[in-house]
């Protein structure tokens, strides 16, 4: 399960603390530190530890949203061009034998690059 974690400025090392407290290994898919928007990390945790980790993070002052899945693909808008394929850092997109676009949402780290690169607005974030 993917969690989007927003941290407040000058916060403590929350992720490290949660790993130590819960013993759950957390994989950081991507992290961003921005002067205006604060710090944000997308982390991957085992499904069964999802509630434990998010509760612990919240108690330490982080905002946590649970992301059910990766990028959303609207098949009605998609024309199967493939503009998204080469911009994705995780190889989420590919063609099948009939040149139809396949989307492996499990690999997605929600970086959002493909959203801009889709000429048909067929890709979006869930929340």
């Amino acid at each position, binding site marked *: 399960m993917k969690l989007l974690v927003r941290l407040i400025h000058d916060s403590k090392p929350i992720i490290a603390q949660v790993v130590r407290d819960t013993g759950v290994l957390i994989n950081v898919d991507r992290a961003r530190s921005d002067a205006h928007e604060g710090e944000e990390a997308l982390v991957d945790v085992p499904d069964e530890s999802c509630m434990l980790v998010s509760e612990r993070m919240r108690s330490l002052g982080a905002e946590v949203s649970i992301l059910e899945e990766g990028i959303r693909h609207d098949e009605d808008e998609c*024309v*199967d*061009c*493939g*503009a*998204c*394929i*080469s*911009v994705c850092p995780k190889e989420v997109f*590919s*063609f099948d034998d*009939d*040149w*139809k676009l396949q989307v492996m949402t499990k690999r997605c780290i929600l970086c959002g*690059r493909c959203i*801009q*690169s889709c*000429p*048909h*607005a067929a890709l979006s974030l869930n929340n």
Partner: protein
Amino acid sequence: MEKSIDEINRRICDGSARVVTADEMPDIVSELGEEGALREVDVVTTGTFGAMCSSGSFLNFGHAEPPIKMERIWLNDVEAYGGLAAVDTYIGATNKSVTQMESYGGAHVIEDFITGKSIELRAQSSGSDCYPRRSITTEIRLEDLNQAIMVNPRNAYQRYDAAVNTSDDTMFTYMGTLLPHCGNVTFSGAGTLNPICNDPNLRLIGSGIPILLGGAQGMVVGEGTQHSSAGNFGTLMTTADMSDMTSDFLRAAYMYRYGPTLYLGVGVPIPVLDLEVVRKTAVRDEELMVSIKDYGVPSRSRPVLRQVSYKELKSGMIELNGEEVRTSSLSSYRRAKLVASTLKRWIEEGQMTLCLPTRPIDPSKQAKPMRETRKVVLVQEIMLRRVVTIKEDQDITEAAKKLLRGETNHLPVLDEQGRLTGVVTTFDVAKAVARPERKVKVLDVMTRNVITTRVDEPIDIAAQKMEHHRISALPVVDAQNQCIAILHASDLGKLFKSGGNKP
């Protein structure tokens, strides 16, 4: 052996014509030989589905009461051409909405029309004795129009050069998102299915021949604008009635930070009259070569990195400077196949017969660049030569003083040899003052990755750099990276002062 067009049409009418799509033809010719393929196949259908920016439609709204001669026209706030009397207009695909997000444009108006949506028409007029009305606002649908005739000046490019970006920044172009440092390659076109690729000498593609356009039966008007078949870049001018189009073959699109465009399906059936047609329609993706051009260089003549075939491009990965680089198509090969197979079905069912061009298209034509009679304004004409600079090892307080004295927000930072190594802004100094812990030298707070310009760079390119990076000044450097001047965004205003250098 040769076949006549009449013979082929007789077979289409009695349902015995053998029609194949262009991607099937190479294997048929390999298997049956050229003579065998000529006997066996009557029609080869082609197809492409991609961004065709140079597209649009003529619309006639019918007369209002009291009547108006529309001089300025907006459809869902996208301006349409007002130079045609009185209730005619032409809506171009790439025009942006004046009020909505720039992601809505003429292409979206066209798609909304064909999917049955209601469009707001606004028009203004200066009025005349015969057309007294000054303005009108109304809601219209496609079925309310007298005519909605798509006429596209430039469609169905024979092939299109692939794009790459060697610069340090992601670029957003009509060729899609181009990642920095050759991070990806984008391309367009259906290769072996492309219409003109199957008739490169334009023997059978010309004025009047039937085509599929946007899902409607249409025709080729003649050569397209910028037609340059001598360089393998032929184009077609096409037309069809919008009332017969469907969203399977017509989709509005928005290229991020470029603007709206129209994705269109175009397919041309080619009658297999003789061996020459057999040979040309047997073309394979590996024989169709294009250049990979560097969009990181903002010039008409972009450097070519290498030649590449459609086969390599379609494989999803190509080799570039010893590294594997992933490719993205911007056109849809799946939909291109749908265009070719739909044309095939039409002909098999006798819904479309073929004809020879009423006027040929010149296969030897070469497009010319624009004649320019006024010189482009260069950075050196408006840059500030008196530039205040600072050294790397000076204190931040010194930088603050210079910024105040120089009445500037940007201080180029120089090393001992006078070479540009960074920039310090008032924001950097303010940050350092707010968090004084360790940062005392210019070196500690300066921005190292400096975007620069040169004296001979066109001012529009410098302005685009500032917009892209959201910065307001560019140090001007020479070949030795010595900072010789600075260009401020505010200086761009000089271009518009009366008596100044007008662009």
